[in-house]
C-alpha cells in the first residue's frame, strides 16, 4: 500500500500543528464558536447529540494492520472503546473531547493518518472498491488513481471553499462496488480499442434531499489527462454551482439545471484550456512511482482447489454458510477474498470495538499481507487470504464475534447513526436495523431470501444510502414521533436507481412487519433464482403496495 515520503509526512505534520493551534485558540477564548466551527468542520470535528464526533480519513478504504491498531488504541484511550465505520469508508469516534483532538491527530500522524478534508465544502476522501487489487475482472488497481487524486485534492488552493462538499469514487471493475453513480464524480476505469487504460467520467450523482444518478460526460479520458479533466469539472462547479441555497449547492443540481450536454461542453472547453498549459499533465514516472506501492503482494503459487477448505466445509456447517456468503473469488489460484461482517445479529451496523480492531489487525497481519479494507457497506475486507487458511481465519474471527455469515444478505444492512448519535436526525436508524436483523436472524431463511440490501437513514441527508437500498427506510419526524418511510427498487451498483416511495410512512411498531410483508410478497412472486431487485424490476411496485396497504 501507499507509504508517505518526506513531503506527505511534512504536510500532515504541518496540518496537525495548524489545527492544534486552532483548538488552543478556541479553548483560550481567542476564537468564538462561530469562527471555530468552520475551522473544526474542515478537520472532521462535529458537535453531535452527546459529545463531539471525530471523522478519520481512511484513504480509499485501505488500512495497514499498524494503522488499525492505532485506531484501536485511540478508541481505548480517548473514546469509549469503539468506533464506527461509515459508508464513505471512514472511521468515526463518537465521544472524543475537543481538548484531546490535537493528541489524537499526533497519534494518527505517527501512522500516516489524518482527518484532513473529512468534512467541509471541499474534495472529500476518495472511495473505491474494497476488492481493489484482488478482483478477477479488474482492469487496473483503482487505488493508484485514487492516491493520485488524494494528493491533487489535498489542500487544493482553488477548491477548498466549494459551494458544497464534493465526493469522488473510483471503480476498476465493470461490477461497481463503489457506488460511483451516486457520487459527485464517478470514475470508471475502462480500456479503449488500442488497449489503453483511461477513465469514463460520471458527474452529478448524489443522495441527500434530491437523489440523482450521475450522468456520463466522457467515455474516455486518457490517463495523463485525468487531473486536468478533474480540475476542469471542479472549476466549472466552483464558478457556476449555486451558492444561494445550501440545498441546491451540490454539483448534481448544476448538472440537472443546465443539462448533461451543456455540462460536458463547459467542462470540455475548460479542459482544452487547462491542457494547453500542460501543468497538470501526469508524467508516466509519477504514475509508475505510485503504481509500485500497489504492486501485487508476494503470492504463493498454489493449486486453486484446497483440500483443507473442502474438508472444513463438509465438517463445519457454520463455516460452510460463512464461505457461501462472506468469501468472494480472488484473481489468484488458491486465494480468496474474505469479507468480515460488522453486522452481528441485533448489533449496530459498522460499529467495531477496539478489541475487535486489534483482532482483525492480527489476522490481517498473519493471513492477508498485513493489510485490510473498509467497505462502503460498513464491513471490513481481507483481500488476499489463502484458501487453505480460510477455516483458521474463520475461527479467529469467530472468537471475536466477527464471523457473522451474512454479507450481501438481508441482515447485512447499512444504517446511519440516526437519532441515537446525530444532531441532525429526525428518527433513530440503528434500532430499526437491529429489529430487522433479529426478525430475519435465521440463516437458512436468509439464504432462501438471497441478496437483499436494506439501507436506513435517520433523516433526508441520506448518510445511510436509503435511496439506493433495494429496500430503503427513511426516518421522518411527525410532531416529535418517529415514523419510517419505505422505498423499493433502489440500487447503487452498475444499474444504479433511486427507489420509489411505496406509500404512507410506518410507525416504529409497524416497520419490521412491513419489511416482512415486502419480503413475503417477493418470495411469493419471484421466479426461480430471481433476486429481490430483479423481481421488483419485473413486477413493479404495485404488488408490494397492495400487500402493504390493502388490509390497513
Amino acid at each position, binding site marked *: 500500500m501507499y507509504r508517505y515520503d518526506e513531503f506527505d509526512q511534512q504536510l500532515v505534520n504541518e496540518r496537525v500543528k495548524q489545527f492544534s493551534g486552532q483548538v488552543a485558540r*478556541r*479553548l*483560550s*477564548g481567542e476564537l468564538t*464558536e462561530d469562527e471555530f466551527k468552520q475551522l473544526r468542520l474542515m478537520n472532521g470535528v462535529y*458537535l*453531535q*447529540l*452527546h*459529545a*463531539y464526533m471525530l471523522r478519520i480519513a481512511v484513504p480509499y478504504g485501505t488500512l495497514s494492520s499498524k494503522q488499525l491498531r492505532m485506531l484501536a488504541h485511540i478508541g481505548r484511550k480517548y473514546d*469509549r472503546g469503539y468506533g464506527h465505520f461509515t459508508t464513505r469508508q471512514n472511521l468515526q469516534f463518537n*465521544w*472524543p*473531547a*475537543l*481538548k484531546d483532538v490535537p493528541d489524537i491527530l499526533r497519534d494518527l500522524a505517527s501512522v500516516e493518518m489524518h482527518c484532513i478534508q473529512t468534512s467541509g465544502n471541499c474534495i472529500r476522501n476518495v472511495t473505491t472498491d474494497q476488492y481493489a487489487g484482488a478482483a478477477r475482472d479488474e482492469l487496473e488497481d483503482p487505488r493508484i488513481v485514487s492516491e493520485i487524486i488524494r494528493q491533487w485534492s489535498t489542500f487544493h488552493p482553488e477548491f477548498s471553499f466549494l459551494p458544497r462538499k464534493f465526493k469522488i469514487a473510483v471503480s476498476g471493475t465493470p461490477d461497481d462496488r463503489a457506488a460511483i453513480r451516486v457520487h459527485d464524480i464517478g470514475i470508471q476505469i475502462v480500456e479503449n480499442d488500442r488497449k489503453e487504460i483511461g477513465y469514463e467520467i460520471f458527474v452529478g450523482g448524489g443522495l441527500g434531499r434530491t437523489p440523482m444518478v450521475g450522468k456520463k460526460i466522457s467515455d474516455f479520458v486518457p490517463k495523463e489527462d485525468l487531473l486536468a479533466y478533474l480540475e476542469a469539472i471542479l472549476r466549472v462547479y466552483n464558478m457556476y454551482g449555486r451558492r444561494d441555497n445550501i440545498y441546491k449547492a451540490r454539483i448534481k443540481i448544476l448538472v440537472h439545471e443546465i443539462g448533461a450536454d451543456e455540462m460536458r461542453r463547459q467542462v470540455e472547453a475548460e479542459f482544452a484550456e487547462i491542457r494547453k498549459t500542460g501543468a497538470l499533465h501526469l508524467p508516466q514516472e509519477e504514475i509508475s512511482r505510485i503504481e509500485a506501492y500497489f504492486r501485487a503482494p508476494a503470492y504463493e503459487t498454489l493449486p486453486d482447489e484446497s483440500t483443507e477448505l473442502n474438508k472444513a466445509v463438509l465438517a463445519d456447517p457454520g463455516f460452510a454458510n460463512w464461505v457461501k456468503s462472506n468469501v468472494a473469488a480472488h484473481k489468484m489460484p488458491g486465494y480468496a477474498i474474505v469479507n468480515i461482517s460488522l453486522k452481528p445479529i441485533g448489533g*449496530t451496523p459498522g460499529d467495531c470495538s477496539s478489541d475487535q480492531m486489534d483482532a482483525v489487525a492480527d489476522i490481517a497481519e498473519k493471513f492477508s499481507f498485513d493489510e485490510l479494507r473498509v467497505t462502503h457497506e460498513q464491513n471490513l475486507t481481507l483481500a488476499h487470504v489463502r484458501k487453505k487458511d480460510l477455516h483458521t481465519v474463520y475461527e479467529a474471527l469467530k472468537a471475536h464475534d466477527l464471523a457473522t455469515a451474512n454479507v450481501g444478505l438481508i441482515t447485512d444492512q447499512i444504517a446511519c447513526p440516526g*437519532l*441515537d*448519535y446525530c*444532531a*441532525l*436526525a*429526525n*428518527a*433513530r436508524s*440503528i*434500532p430499526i436495523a*437491529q429489529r430487522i436483523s433479529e426478525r430475519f436472524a435465521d440463516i437458512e431463511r436468509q439464504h432462501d431470501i438471497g441478496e437483499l440490501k436494506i439501507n436506513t437513514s435517520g433523516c433526508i441527508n441520506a448518510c445511510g444510502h436509503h435511496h439506493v437500498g433495494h429496500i430503503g427506510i427513511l426516518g421522518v*419526524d411527525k410532531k*416529535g*414521533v*418517529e415514523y419510517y418511510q419505505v422505498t423499493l427498487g433502489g440500487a447503487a451498483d452498475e444499474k444504479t436507481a433511486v427507489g420509489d416511495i411505496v406509500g404512507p410512512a410506518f410507525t416504529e411498531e409497524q416497520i419490521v412487519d412491513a419489511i416482512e410483508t415486502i419480503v413475503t410478497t417477493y418470495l411469493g412472486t419471484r421466479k426461480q433464482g430471481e433476486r429481490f431487485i430483479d423481481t421488483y424490476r419485473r413486477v413493479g411496485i404495485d404488488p408490494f403496495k397492495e400487500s402493504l396497504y390493502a388490509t390497513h
Partner: protein
Amino acid sequence: MAQHTRKGAQFQAVTANRLNDGIVVYLTAGGRWSESLQEAAVAEGKEAAEALLARAEPAVADNSIVEPYLFEVARDEGGIRAASVREVIRQAGPTVRLDLGKQAELPDVHR
C-alpha cells in the same frame, strides 16, 4: 434538528454542550451547568423561558459552553422529563448502548 423546540410549550429548560469535552449540560436554578436534567431550572411560559435562555449567555461568553437552546419538558412524579425523543436520548445516552452516556453514569435519567 426538527424535534426539540415546540412553539407554545408550557415548560422549558436550557441545554448546551460543554466546550472542552462536548458533554451535554443543563442550566440550573443556581446558574451552574449540571450534567443531569433533573437539576435543570424549568421556566414556565414564553417570557420566563427567554429570560432563562438569556442566563446562558455568560457561559457562552466565557467559553465554558456552546450552542445553548431551549427545549420542552414536562414534570411528573419522576421529576423533569424531556418531551421529544431527541431530548430524551440526549439526557440518557444512545438507546442502542445502554452502557454508555449518562444512563450509565447518573442515577436519575428517564426514558
